[in-house]
């Protein structure tokens, strides 16, 4: 649905790598061009009309994001991406707080960006990273979280939806349990915020990180949501222009309030402004409708894939548009090259989830990640290409 909104879909490709990045609707592209051609000034100046316009648009996006997540606008920080957001949370908020022996719970299916910042706290602060066990479907259950919590647990850092398994974690229940035990919850929303309704007040998570480019917005922009009282205590990693109120000497530095304090330097203005249009666009379609469409497409794909005897589906059960699988006996990358010859774009590899192999015993796979603009006929083409193993072997070189 809504295919006519996406100029990239006029190209001769079948794009099934939306988990890596999504395509951009024309309104987002137009908004980027509008900024560069109509009011290309810096933000936070406001001394002349076009700069005032920039501020209005820039802060307008912050309000739109806040409303989209049911947060307050001062709880929304613009970053360079989900990775940047997660690093700011780990280094700016938790590093000063964490003590040797404190435990951080993650899972083996997390993306590198939600693993390495926590490994750093282990290496530099003596914290201990532990893994919540995954069930037989590689899902996270509240019971397994409970089993891993000790009096030393300080942080639970998990994706709401993971990028290979695509399972939806019970974040709301985990937050409730965690908060009863004085544990902070950090949510990596990179794969969930673009595909389902996320309400931070309802979830009651402490922090949420995600990227604009995976949700039909521009590249180079991420969001860090944090509860206001927590953001107040997040040390800015970058100091510089735009985030200080005044300074005279090293002992006399006055910083601005959140969230501006956490956005040093000239921000990614064009992307922030264009992201406002992406949010408007998503709201117009409706997140529930998007989610419903993507789950329908997933089922449509699974029902066909499952009939191919030499295809091993890794995540048969998952309430998202992510399907990971392998063609028996053929290296995933070779299958991806074969599909590329027919202009089908899928991802092969470990998908940055490099410790997931400990649980699945599969070191690499093909991943199809669907978006609402994908069609039954695109899936039919994919399945038809995968339905002839001899053809794959013959044409994979």
């Amino acid at each position, binding site marked *: 649905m809504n295919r006519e909104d996406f100029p990239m879909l006029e190209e001769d490709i079948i794009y099934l790598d939306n988990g890596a990045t999504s395509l951009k609707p024309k309104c987002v592209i137009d908004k980027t061009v509008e900024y560069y051609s109509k009011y290309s000034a810096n933000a936070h100046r406001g001394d002349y009309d076009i700069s005032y316009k920039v501020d209005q648009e820039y802060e307008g996006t912050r309000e739109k994001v806040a409303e989209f997540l049911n947060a307050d606008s001062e709880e929304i920080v613009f970053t360079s991406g989900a990775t940047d957001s997660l690093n700011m949370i780990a280094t700016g908020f938790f590093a000063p707080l964490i003590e040797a022996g404190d435990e951080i719970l993650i899972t083996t299916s997390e993306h590198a960006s939600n693993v390495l910042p926590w490994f750093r706290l282990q290496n530099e602060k003596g914290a201990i990273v532990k893994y919540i066990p995954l069930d037989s479907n590689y899902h996270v259950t509240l019971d397994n979280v409970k089993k891993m919590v000790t009096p030393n647990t300080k942080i639970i850092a998990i994706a709401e939806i993971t990028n290979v398994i695509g399972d939806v974690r019970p974040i709301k229940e985990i937050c409730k349990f965690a908060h009863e035990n004085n544990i902070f919850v950090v949510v990596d929303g990179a794969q969930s915020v673009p595909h389902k309704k996320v309400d931070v007040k309802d979830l009651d998570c402490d922090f949420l990180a995600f990227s604009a480019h995976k949700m039909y917005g521009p590249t180079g922009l991420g969001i860090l949501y944090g509860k206001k009282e927590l953001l107040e205590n997040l040390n800015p990693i970058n100091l510089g222009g735009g985030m200080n109120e005044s300074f005279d000497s090293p002992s006399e530095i006055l910083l601005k309030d959140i969230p501006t304090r956490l956005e040093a330097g000239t921000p990614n203005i064009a992307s922030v402004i264009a992201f406002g249009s992406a949010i408007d666009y998503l709201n117009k379609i409706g997140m529930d409708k998007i989610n419903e469409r993507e789950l329908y497409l997933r089922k449509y794909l699974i029902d066909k894939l499952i009939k191919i005897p030499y295809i091993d589906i890794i995540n048969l059960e998952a309430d998202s548009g992510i399907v990971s699988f392998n063609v028996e006996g053929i*290296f995933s*990358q070779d299958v991806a090259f074969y599909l*590329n010859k027919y202009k089908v774009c899928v991802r092969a590899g470990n998908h940055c989830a490099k410790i997931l192999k400990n649980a699945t015993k599969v*070191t*690499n796979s093909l991943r199809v990640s669907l978006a609402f603009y994908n069609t039954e006929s695109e899936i039919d083409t994919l399945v038809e290409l995968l339905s002839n193993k001899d053809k794959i072997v013959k044409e994979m*070189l």
Partner: protein
Amino acid sequence: MDPEIKREIIMEHYQNPLHRHHVDDKSYDMVNTANSSCIDNLNIYIKYDGDVIKDIAFEGEACAISISSTSIMIENLIGKTREEALNIIDNFENMINEKEYSEDVLGNAVVYSDIYKQNSRKSCAFLPYRGLREALTKKDNGKS
């Protein structure tokens, strides 16, 4: 060379690669070679006899192009001197980058002469050569 014959040679070396096994022998040097843009990841083991490459073996996970290219490279390089080996690596690199190269030193590796047509596959074909060059140059510097 006929494209169908090229294909057959590549497939044969992919499905039945030569010298693919683990080496647990301290007299071998080991080098890891991996493509950052994908998941090809190989360990290559090399044993020298003075200046001559006496044996090479490899293990690891990679695509059909990388595996076959490694097998073909090993077949060609065993018995060569370091200098000859480095010359073969240079010529292979020139070939996949559409520069001038000497076909007669490459042996079966000429099956990749058209690989430049698939940009993303060039690094797969070159992967073992990159690793071996690193190992040979290290040896030259007396580091290993």
